[in-house]
């Protein structure tokens, strides 16, 4: 197990490095940020001074080498717009994003998994059909649209919830629901199909035959066996969640990393974009590592040697 862990962690290093290279190249090939950051009527001298201050006048390979050496020390450089360390700007906003992502993930698990189990158990009944119908809509609806729709319904018409911002628990409800909606749909569908497989297995019949109650059969024996593919999907969807916060945070004025990402991309604030890509990639890799470890916990047949 330990050996496996060490190997997995070692493998993440080239992955992260590859991501750094790609993000560096993509941002720097997209053009010069000077024109976006300084107003158009600024003199050429001031522009050159700006480029010089941020090292943008250097050849791209020189910039790359200094970027790599700094990134190795956890320094992504100063933001071109905020003149503060990029990593600090990102970390300052991480709490808000984590809060939102965890709430969305919790909502996904609390709603999505039971919905899938129920739909599978009562397959082809009106219950199943309504779950499947709702999840189809959920997967088809883009989240920016869903976000605005929910603001109009719950904040403007009903006046139940605030339109945006962060503060009380009530501020969390709409963004978390919006962010999780597509995931709930996906998880419900995956859970349903896995449960359908499992419920037809011999060991379920055995469990029933030995007199276990339906609750135990379905939730303990059934769900536990159906959960591994669900877990895989959840691990992979962390990436989706990271992308989702970009839209959700913008619509709901949520002061998190996703919104910072959007602004940084529009302004070509390279250091900030790179710091965000790095952190998101790191989170993705770590979550999936944890998912792999969970496999062994859930299914004793899986072991890592």
């Amino acid at each position, binding site marked *: 197990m330990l050996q496996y862990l060490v190997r997995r962690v070692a493998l993440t290093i080239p992955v992260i490095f590859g991501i750094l290279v790609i993000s560096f190249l993509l941002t720097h090939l*997209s*053009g*010069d*940020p000077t*024109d*976006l950051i*300084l*107003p*158009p*009527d*600024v*003199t*050429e*001298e*001031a522009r050159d*001074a700006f480029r010089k201050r941020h090292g943008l006048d250097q050849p791209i390979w020189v910039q790359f080498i200094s970027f790599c050496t700094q990134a190795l020390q956890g320094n992504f450089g100063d933001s071109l717009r*905020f*003149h*503060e360390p990029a990593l600090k*700007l990102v970390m*300052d*906003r991480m709490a*808000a994003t984590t809060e939102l992502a965890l709430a969305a993930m919790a909502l996904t698990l609390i*709603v999505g998994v039971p919905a899938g189990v129920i739909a599978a158990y009562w397959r082809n009944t009106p219950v199943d059909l309504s*779950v499947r119908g*709702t*999840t189809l809509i*959920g997967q088809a609806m883009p989240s920016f649209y869903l976000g*605005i729709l929910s*603001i*109009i319904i*719950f*904040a*403007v018409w*009903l*006046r*139940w*919830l*605030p*339109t*945006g*911002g*962060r503060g009380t628990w*009530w501020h969390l*409800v709409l963004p978390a*629901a919006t962010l999780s909606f597509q995931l709930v749909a996906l998880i*419900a569908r995956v859970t349903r199909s896995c449960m359908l497989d499992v419920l037809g297995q011999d060991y379920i019949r055995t469990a029933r035959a030995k007199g276990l109650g339906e609750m135990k059969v379905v939730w303990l024996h059934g769900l536990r066996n159906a959960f591994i593919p669900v877990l895989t999907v959840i691990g992979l969807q962390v990436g989706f969640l990271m992308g989702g916060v970009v839209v959700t945070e*913008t*619509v*709901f*004025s949520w*002061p*998190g990393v996703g*919104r*910072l990402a*959007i*602004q940084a991309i*529009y*302004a*070509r604030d390279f250091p900030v974009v790179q710091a965000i890509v790095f952190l998101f990639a790191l989170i993705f890799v770590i979550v999936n590592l944890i998912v792999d470890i969970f496999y062994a916990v859930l299914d004793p047949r899986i072991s890592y040697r």
Partner: protein
Amino acid sequence: MFSKMRRVTAAAALLAALALPASADTLTIAQNFDPQTLWPNGTTASDNLNAGSAMVESLFWQDPRVNEIRPLLATGFEMESPTSVIVKLREGITFTNGEPMNADAVVHSVNIFIDKEQTPAYAQVAQAFSGAEKVDDLTVRITLHDSYPPLALALSQIYVVPPNYWNEMGLEAYGQKPVGTGPFKFVEWVRDDKLVMERNEDYWGDLPEGIDGLIWRPVPDDAARVAGLTTGEYQVAKDLPVTAIPGLENEPEIKLVPVPSYRIYQIGLSSLPQHESPLQNKLVRQALNYAVDKEAIINSLFFGKAEPLNGQVLRKSQLGFNPDLQDYPYDPEKAKAMLAEAGYPDGFTIPFKFPSGRYAQDREVSEAVAGMLSKVGVKTEMIALEPGEFLRQLRSKELAPMYFVGLAPQDDPAFQASQYVSTWRYTPIANEEIDALAEAGAKEMDVEKRRKIYQDMMALMHEEAPIIFLYDGIDVYGTDARLQNFLPRGDGRMFFYDVSYGQ
């Protein structure tokens, strides 16, 4: 699942009604962006300046309600010579940290303003100044390189900071927690979430009545700003989308404040020698002006919330506006005839570049223009550009021969005029007469002579048609109906001097 969500939200509803802040006398203002710095001279972005200048004040300010430059920390200025100006300061003002606002503070602030390294965003204006010195405690002499007609406008952009605090904090840290002389002072700033200010009880002037404090919130989504304004979460919302205006007009608790923008929208028609195209011919450029129905664009794409240009780039309120000029009327037949006369009886095909997502309705306007041009035989190859790439191409003159752009120079005809001078980095035209007029206007200190120069220049530009004259944008702000005397400026700036809130 829907039923679950409804139950959750229904439970939330009861408490939410109680939990929402009933912001009694604190105004919450929704802008598009969170400031990067609260030091006003750190940037020219209006969202930054609006928040920063509520705390840090300038020598003068341009009041949009009377359209003139009024004294603020200064009491007035007087020309000693064409290149030297004496600025008198208001007596007895202190910064909120106790430092005195005096000649030392002003000299210190002017020196920062002039330094390109520290204020790159103001370099175009600052290059007119050469230095500042203290005459006595309340008098400062500021020297210029040359006579400079927009001097008052330039002085209105110098913000005064307390020297000791500034030296102690440094430029970046000052911008995070500024100290000034303004009607409000800094309380707390949670990045991307809220910036809180309370009123400065020791303010030297009249405080805005009924306003205890300000909370600035960045709300990037247009629809979300409208929603928050409707629910009363925001008392001021900046840059409302035109599409939301018809729905808000009938809300009794909301007041819409339309402000003609400094931004002049136009189709650049390059006749620069290096850009070979039919646009080299003046007749063709005029014909394209006849071929575009400006009024239809204003009415259908902006619900009337845009102003016609009257065939010139200066606005009615500006010095040098030429009242004899009118928009090219919409006359496709005449356009066709002129194109035929110019040697293009069957029209021609031309590339047409425009930004997508930089200006309100930019893609829609460009498509409308392209459609109108096709009716007179001019086919456009439309090329949409991401805003960053668009700006790069604008500055490197790669948008030519034809492009949609909205330019918002500062509010003096010199800045507007300079954009069509042959040496300007994104001019569409090189014309000696235009150059001569712009140069004369930039130096002329006599107001009436100066007016005449720019009127002549507008007439010449109308004739030469280096652009298709489209429209002047209108920025629409939404406020709580109880906010009185609030009028933002055409450059997105809002102020709270003489504003009141309440019944």
